[in-house]
């Protein structure tokens, strides 16, 4: 990875003003996504995973204070305006958890799907519709012409999310930001939508930033997974190794806390406390330390840096020392309670 990645986020810090007080929501987020690569962004509520995607897509609330860098194909994203920003959004598409909240209920599917093509790229209406029908076919919706005439309420949640994916891909983006796109769907529908996303990203050479709370779901389509806690990236690792060889105690906890469909545990490996939001996190010590069974004095002595380890990154000062023990320590240990 010596060449510039497609998306390069560096030291991204975002503060929002809530009730007259400035509160950090992201703290020095680092992230690289190469062309055609799928990266998972995993965390619990308040970790900052959705806010990261919003910052990348320039969808932060008005008044947000941003520092650090976001570069897309070498271009500074933070200074884009007007036509430049519209062109950027054609290359970086976004899909959301609740498709119904992001589509105009009184407009037909066809109008919604072809809008960007017609207004931003100057494609004729008939041609735009033709492309929309072809793309609907790609996401497994065969009778596209009929669907274009329908309204959002006539489609099921899974069908509408597939329409959103098709619409997002119509402008031939290079990067797809997918913010929990399957969380509101039934399990079987989720499996179908995930398979479609995986197929299409390979076919179109599309890079994906896949945001979810589910490590296994991210691993299903992502080459690498980044784990967030309290507004920071705490680990970036090859997805397949997240379970067997995590580099940060929190990732190990996330993997072990989920019940296993193949066996019943006597007790789940639960840790105490609750996930912190970025604004609650201490400035000068490890944010996870109060819940970490491996925390010692040094963890509270300063804010840990992201350090490289086995081609991954970990924000744990003890990462090298604890390597190989994190996954087993939890499944054997009897940590419980709050």
């Amino acid at each position: 990875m010596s060449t510039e990645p497609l998306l390069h986020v560096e030291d991204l810090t975002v503060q929002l003003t809530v009730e007259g007080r400035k509160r950090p929501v992201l703290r020095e987020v680092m992230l690289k996504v190469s062309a055609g690569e799928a990266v998972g962004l995993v965390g619990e509520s308040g970790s900052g995973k959705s806010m990261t995607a919003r910052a990348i897509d320039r969808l932060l609330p008005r008044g947000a204070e941003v520092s650090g860098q976001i570069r897309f194909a070498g271009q500074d994203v933070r200074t884009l305006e007007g036509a430049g920003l519209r062109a950027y959004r054609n290359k970086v598409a976004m899909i959301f958890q609740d498709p119904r909240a992001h589509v105009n209920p009184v407009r037909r599917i066809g109008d919604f799907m072809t809008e960007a093509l017609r207004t931003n790229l100057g494609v004729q209406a008939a041609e735009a519709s033709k492309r929309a029908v072809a793309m609907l076919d790609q996401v497994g919706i065969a009778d596209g012409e009929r669907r274009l005439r329908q309204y959002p309420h006539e489609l099921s949640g899974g069908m509408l999310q597939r329409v959103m994916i098709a619409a997002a891909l119509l402008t031939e983006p290079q990067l797809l930001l997918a913010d929990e796109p399957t969380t509101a769907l039934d399990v079987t529908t989720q499996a179908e939508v995930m398979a479609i996303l995986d197929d299409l990203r390979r076919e179109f050479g599309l890079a994906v930033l896949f945001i979810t709370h589910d490590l296994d779901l991210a691993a299903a389509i992502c080459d690498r997974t980044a784990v967030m806690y309290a507004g920071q990236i705490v680990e970036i690792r090859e997805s397949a190794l997240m379970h067997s060889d995590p580099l940060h105690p929190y990732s190990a906890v996330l993997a072990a806390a989920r019940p296993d469909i193949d066996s019943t545990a006597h007790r789940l490996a639960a840790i105490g406390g609750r996930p912190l939001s970025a604004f609650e996190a201490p400035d000068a010590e490890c944010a996870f330390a109060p819940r970490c069974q491996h925390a010692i004095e040094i963890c509270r002595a300063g804010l840990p840096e992201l350090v490289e380890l086995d081609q991954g990154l970990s924000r744990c000062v003890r990462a090298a020392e604890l390597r190989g023990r994190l996954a087993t320590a939890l499944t054997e240990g009897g940590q419980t309670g709050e």
Partner: protein
Amino acid sequence: MSDHILETSVLEVGGLRKEFGELVAVDDVNFAVPQAGSLAIVGESGSGKTTIARMIVGLERPTKGRIEACGQDRSTPARSSGERRRRGREVQIVFQDPYTSLDPRQTAQATIDEVLRLHHGWPADQRRERITELTGLVGLDERQARALPRALSGGQRQRVAIARALAAEPRVLILDESVAALDVSIQAQVLNLLADIRDSTGVSYVLISHDLAVVRQLTNDVIVLHRGVVVERGTTASVLDDPQHPYTKRLRASVPRPGWKPRRGTLLATGEES
């Protein structure tokens, strides 16, 4: 799973049916839950699982069929407040959303106290003692017990909802997707808590869930619902390890787990989604 456990079952449902106009939401559903047992009702949206829960607690009236808790029929509305209270001591429910299921103006203590007064009519000091026991049982500290819901996290609110349900000392607790909205690390805490409570109180669980991993962790028996009909039943371990019905197989194959790869075409092949 019917005849041989009839005598010890605390909840029994027979020939249960619910129609909404033309739609048959629940069709001839039968099950029994033994004392200290745990049954999962598994299904996706539109399967009828929540409608069953609502009929058991009296929020919907069955079109047909029988619901008995502790040997008492409850398929028709309660005719007196006394009977309604008795039913409350038989079955309680914990809903999915901890953010909307509590009164925003009531502290955890007051929430529990109200149930204790209503169901047991104890004097104040006995109620206070029981409140301390219950909040301790669900792992709320002193400060949290005195806090309003808005000062509590989702996991803490769900603990309050569980404590409130337990305050009535029910024989059966219906958990309607009660851990589905919780963060992974909090969900693990609450699942462990629910296992502890069953061990210490002998309460029976009916878990309404779409999450097969949670079902495996918390229940002994399972019924799988598809469009209102029970398509498979058995012990949770046998149904999940060796599913027989095509729908159960598909559900099982759709669960993300380490090494899982999603495959296309399952929905289209079975004509789901229109």
